[in-house]
């Protein structure tokens, strides 16, 4: 028989458990809420080098929005975001369809397409900056081989430099889209496909009519996650072009960092961060609404 325990109050006995659950969770939740609110508050103050109280209304926001740096960053984000999302989703889908053809060495190929994701953006950005550097990389190689009129100098071309980021970002993360699409392709009901085959439908028709339409929910998920990644892109650009040449490849995340830590304009930096959050919400809120509607439909079905 066990010795009788001393009678402790219930809450004292359960204190360690409360602490282990609540302390980390509360810290996590509290820091997310309070830090965000604090940054929003700072964005309305005249803070420069140090945070100060005061109220300047939307002046920081108008200053950020009127700056050339932000305008270029915003235009770049629209271009980079849409080009990257469309092209990486397309690449991922093509890779997934190719891998879905019961080919040999599927596992090895899948690993090859996914490995860039495991590596830091700093590393991949550095490597791509070498490959795309006209004096060092692909252009130099082709020149050395004898084709001296070959030009591939996007990295130092103001109008084309943003595309080098698109290229590197696609290489880095279309494997992720592939993984999701592949999971989707594999979950299509085999009986439906077999029935279509018996009816005489060819593989192209089966893909167009049966398989691809069923991938819509995955496509939307891929697009939203890639957009979210595009909006917060920082490391890749920092390593690949550092926003250059000039400010031609500036992106919002770099503008925030520049304002906060290089120019010590805390109020404006906070305003730029809040603008980033708003851009993100413009993507995530419709997605959340769509997910909610889908769940409800599933619940009633």
């Amino acid at each position, binding site marked *: 028989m066990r010795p009788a325990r001393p009678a402790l109050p219930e809450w004292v006995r359960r204190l360690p458990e409360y602490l282990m659950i609540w302390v980390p969770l509360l810290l*996590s939740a509290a820091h997310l809420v309070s830090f965000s609110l604090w*940054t929003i508050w700072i964005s309305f103050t005249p803070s420069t080098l140090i945070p100060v109280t005061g109220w300047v209304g939307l002046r920081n926001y108008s200053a950020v929005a009127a700056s050339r740096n932000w305008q270029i960053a915003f235009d770049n984000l629209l271009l980079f975001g849409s080009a990257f999302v469309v092209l990486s989703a397309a690449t991922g889908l093509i890779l997934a369809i190719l891998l879905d*053809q019961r*080919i040999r060495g599927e596992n090895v190929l899948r690993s090859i397409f996914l490995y860039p994701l495991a590596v830091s953006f700093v590393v991949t950005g550095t490597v791509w900056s070498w490959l795309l*550097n006209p004096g060092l990389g*692909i252009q130099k*190689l082709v020149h050395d081989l004898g084709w001296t009129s070959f030009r591939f100098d996007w990295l130092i071309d103001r109008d084309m430099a943003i595309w080098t980021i698109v290229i590197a970002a696609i290489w880095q993360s279309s494997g992720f889209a592939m*993984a999701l699409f592949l999971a989707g392709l594999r979950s299509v009901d085999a009986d439906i496909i077999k029935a279509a085959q018996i009816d005489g439908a060819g593989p192209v028709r089966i893909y167009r009519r049966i398989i691809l339409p069923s991938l819509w929910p995955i496509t939307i998920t891929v697009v939203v996650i890639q957009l979210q990644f595009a909006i917060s892109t920082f490391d890749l650009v*920092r390593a690949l072009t550092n926003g250059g040449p000039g400010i031609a490849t500036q992106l919002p995340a770099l503008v*925030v960092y520049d304002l906060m830590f290089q120019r010590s304009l805390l109020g404006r930096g906070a305003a730029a961060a809040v603008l980033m959050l708003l851009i993100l919400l413009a993507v995530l809120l419709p997605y959340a609404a769509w997910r909610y509607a889908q769940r409800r439909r599933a619940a009633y079905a």
Partner: protein
Amino acid sequence: MRERSFTPSRILIYLAVSLIAVAWLAPLAVVVLNSLRTNEEIAQGSMIGWPQHLAWANYAAAWSGFCVAETCAGIRPYMLNSALVTIPATIFSTLLGAIAGYAISLWRFRGDTWIYGIVTLGLFLPQQMRLLPWTIVLRDIGLINTLAGLVLIHTIQGLSFTTLFCRNYYVAIPHELIRAARIDGAGFFRIFWRIILPLSGPILIVTVIWQFTHIWNEFLYGVTFTTGQQQPVTAALIALSAAVADIPQHGVQSAAVIIAALPTLLIYLLGGKYFVRGLTAGAVK
């Protein structure tokens, strides 16, 4: 079987995947080859080329020789920094996430869905919203420019991912198991140690791999909250490429890039299946 025969269309498919695979491997191959070429060799030709003789000295220089600013200790101290941040932060965030996920999914308590909802918000909020507050908090508690500060940040931020992963895994555990254990007099922690943890192998592997790669590869916090000798390897790599810009040392830099990428590449090679599971779990749930 029809699909196995070598029809023209199947040859085309193999050709396409092989070409793309070569393109995907090319950047890695270029860096590996460059890490074995001398700087003169690279300067004479391009970054793309075969090594004339294997310049292993690049690795020695990258590991412990080259200079960033006035210190000439190579990449070694920064690798150590990254390890000292990544390993504890991965362990803490995984363990706390497992307990939180277990409490939320199987124990239930007042306000759990609210807390859980807010914590998972951390997956979406941009890091930039938290940079200034973290600067002030770290300064006030004396952890600015320390590795401990980065461990703290990554542990708290990591909870968003680890709690989500573990919670989604634990909801599938039958509640009867917990109820029976409670009737037998087992408490919160005893159930966790005796029942939940032994069942958690797969999800803990996913979470650890996910957190390790995430934290090792992180750059923004490293460059914002640490300087000089305290920086993780991602931040040091950027400082290195700026430092050698006037006298190009691409051979040594390539070796440094390989060394810095090695831990996560190894983890990916060893646990690729779990890495993918982590990716898709983070995406679909």
